[in-house]
């Protein structure tokens, strides 16, 4: 399998199988990394990439299979064992303690740290490593104050501080601006040049093709093949990963936008930490229009969304629906006016995850007929309503009374979209609609959003996936540190680098 550079691989996983309460996440997977190699692990969501790497990192224990380090068998019971053996991992959701400082996070769990923390020494060491790898960071900052890109730097440094030889990066570029990604790849190249092995989990073909030496694709938990990057093509990889040809392209018809429906003027919103998360944002959306909103996560998108659907109070500014002032109204009035919301936190905000499909289907209309009758709920009509959503939106579920937390990510999102879209929303606020979905579900969700656009919805689409935004949006706004950096009228014609600069906070003129 390994075409090998002669030597024994740095790390080798043989015949790994892992099951989670009946679901097989990995089946008989072989995988190896050599010194100085950047090895991409490719696969759809749910293909078992993270599980495989969590096994290598000692977080999960394999049900079958063995791990070899420099050719010798090893058993990792905990991450502590893996780290001691020189294997480090940067998770997609960084394993950082947010209420601690950067330097405290750096030494968390490092064995030979003295009882009283030698702050100065640690900070010097951090400066040394961060200088060497070009990862600038303020060691005394609290982690929660840092941007996502900076937090990733901390997570990377955390591993470099432990002198790891193999570094696993779980979808590292998903949270970065294009420019930040370029810098990350410089660091990765530097590491592999020094003989580190790097495992790079991704589903972005472009990065895999340009930045890695070798690719292993996983499909439904099984190894679908390992090839040298230079000897393959994007198409071949896509087919390897999905087992068939699927494209993400959707057809966006030309439509003339209707009248202005939803207007926002100079709104300011506080974030959870009490600092202004949205400052002086203004925009409007017309019927039959999708306004895309690009930006790195944590730049105020979440707070903006919540304010737009009445879940978060405004400090100042106006929200107008059809010319009527909405600010200060209850979330229920926003719903009654036809403003619907598909949040990024599907299980926490979008659904009551312990309740069944029927209850979740009527959760935004149980107070009115035909579902609600005064203080009572008509469960027969409710079930009919749930059944309609399931059929119209292609949700596969064991029964109408399955708790929604047991649905897969794709089906959960389809149910959520179905609930919101079946009400023919006038305004639709959508956040990260395809996060964590596989290719076919992604495609389905995008088509549904375009269908809503044709039916007259005015949509605000927040996403971190630039390709998605460019494929769906009529206009594109970029958000940085709570402000709109620019509104692009014809986003498809704008070079990606320019959007990237706006996402990083450069003013429009410079971009």
């Amino acid at each position, binding site marked *: 399998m390994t075409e090998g550079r002669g030597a024994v691989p740095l790390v080798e996983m043989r015949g790994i199988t892992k099951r989670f309460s009946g679901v097989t996440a990995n089946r008989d997977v072989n995988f190896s990394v050599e010194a100085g190699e950047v090895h991409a692990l490719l696969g759809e969501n749910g293909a078992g990439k993270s599980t495989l790497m969590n096994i290598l990192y000692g*977080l999960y224990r394999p049900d079958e299979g063995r791990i070899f380090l420099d050719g010798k068998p090893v058993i990792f019971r*905990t*991450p502590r064992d893996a780290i001691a053996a020189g294997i480090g991992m940067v998770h997609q959701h960084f394993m950082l303690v947010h*209420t601690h400082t950067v330097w405290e996070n750096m030494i*968390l*769990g490092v064995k030979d740290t003295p009882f009283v923390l030698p702050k100065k020494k640690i900070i010097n060491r951090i400066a040394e490593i961060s200088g060497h790898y070009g990862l600038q960071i303020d060691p005394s900052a609290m982690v929660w104050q840092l941007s996502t890109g900076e937090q990733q730097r901390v997570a990377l440094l955390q591993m470099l501080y432990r002198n790891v030889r193999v570094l696993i990066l779980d979808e590292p570029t998903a949270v970065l601006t294009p420019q930040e990604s370029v810098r990350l790849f410089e660091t990765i190249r530097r590491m592999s040049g020094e003989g580190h092995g790097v495992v790079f989990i991704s589903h972005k073909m472009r990065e895999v093709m340009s930045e890695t030496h070798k690719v292993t694709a996983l499909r439904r938990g099984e190894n679908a093949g390992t090839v040298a990057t230079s000897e393959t093509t994007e198409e071949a990889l896509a087919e390897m990963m999905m087992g068939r040809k699927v494209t993400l392209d959707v057809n966006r018809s030309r439509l003339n936008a209707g009248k202005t429906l939803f207007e926002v003027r100079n709104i300011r919103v506080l974030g959870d930490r009490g600092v202004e998360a949205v400052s002086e944002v203004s925009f409007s959306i017309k019927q039959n229009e999708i306004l895309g909103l690009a930006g790195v996560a944590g730049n105020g998108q979440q707070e903006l969304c919540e304010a737009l659907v009445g879940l978060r109070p405004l400090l100042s500014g106006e929200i107008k629906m059809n010319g009527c002032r909405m600010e200060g109204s209850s979330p229920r009035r926003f719903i009654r006016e036809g403003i619907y919301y598909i949040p990024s936190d599907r299980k926490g905000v979008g659904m009551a995850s312990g309740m069944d499909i029927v209850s979740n289907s009527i959760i935004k209309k149980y107070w009115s007929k035909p579902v609600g009758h005064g203080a009572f709920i008509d469960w027969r009509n409710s079930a009919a309503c749930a059944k309609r959503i399931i059929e119209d939106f292609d949700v596969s579920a064991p029964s109408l009374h399955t708790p929604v937390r047991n649905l897969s990510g794709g089906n959960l999102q389809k149910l959520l979209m179905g609930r919101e879209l079946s009400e023919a929303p006038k305004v639709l606020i959508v956040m990260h609609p395809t996060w964590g979905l596989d290719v076919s579900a992604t495609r389905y969700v995008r088509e549904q959003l375009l269908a809503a656009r044709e039916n007259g919805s005015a949509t605000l689409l927040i996403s971190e996936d630039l390709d998605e935004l460019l494929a769906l949006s009529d206009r594109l706004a970029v958000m940085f540190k709570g402000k709109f950096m620019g509104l692009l009228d014809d986003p498809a014609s704008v070079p990606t680098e320019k959007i990237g600069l706006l996402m990083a906070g450069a003013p429009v003129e410079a971009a």
Partner: protein
Amino acid sequence: METLIPILAAAVRSGTPILYATLGEIVTEKAGIMNIGLEGIMLMGALTGFSATLSTGRPWLGLSAAFAVGACLGLIHAFLSVTLGSNQVVCGLAMTMFGGGASALMGRNQVGMTIKGMAPLDIPVLSELPILGRVFFSQDIMVYISFILVFFLVFFLRCTRPGMDLRAVGDNPRAADAMGLPVARIRCTYAILGAGLVALGGAYMSVVYNKFWAESMTAGRGWIAVAMVIFAVWNPMRAALGAYLFGGVDAFQLRLQAAGTSVPTPLLMMLPYILTILVLVFISIGKGRKISLSAPSALGVPFYREERD
């Protein structure tokens, strides 16, 4: 001033049981474990401390025994909430009921007996200080230990490696685990030590402060300590302030009772509780954000490594 100093000195003594209990709960909660069974643990500590002192004649043995019994109760709580991952509020309530009932049952034949307790110990030089000397430094050893404990905990939590580990498992056990910390072991350790301190608070009441045992003698101080942790935003220094506030009002109302006023006694006895809660609520107005920021993020949430979210 001269009449005030004895009251202030009594305030420190009266606040000390609550201070121990609050410090114990801070340690436990910082590790992410919520133990609301303080009242029960304090009562078990009070009974153990009293019985052991009564039979051996040595307060030191009594206090140590109380700490050990508290630690055992902490071990039970840790086993239920960390190992078995059960609901920590339910465990805590069970602990309260168990401690209250068991101590009343086992202490029946010790009601009405008295012990000698601990003699005050003047600290050289410091006790000569005007006012402060007689308020803080002419007390018994347990009070001095509580002072040291407050400063030590501040230092421990902020500047030491185990202190940082403790905060990490309470704030983000998943991250702590991924960085190789033994989350369950750390959580259990501090749940046990914390409960030991809580029991010490109870034992102080029976062995040093009152020198007798009575059923339900902690009279809700455990619950006050649970609230105090939140108002103190998990800060040992502020915990001391809160505890002495309670002690101050308590000492004051005892003087009033002794002096004989027309105010009904039950009303006076309510005073420390009502005033403490009012003051605590008052100073926390508008600090909701600070409290939620300081609260250990994973407080009361069991941790399983292989649970997927």
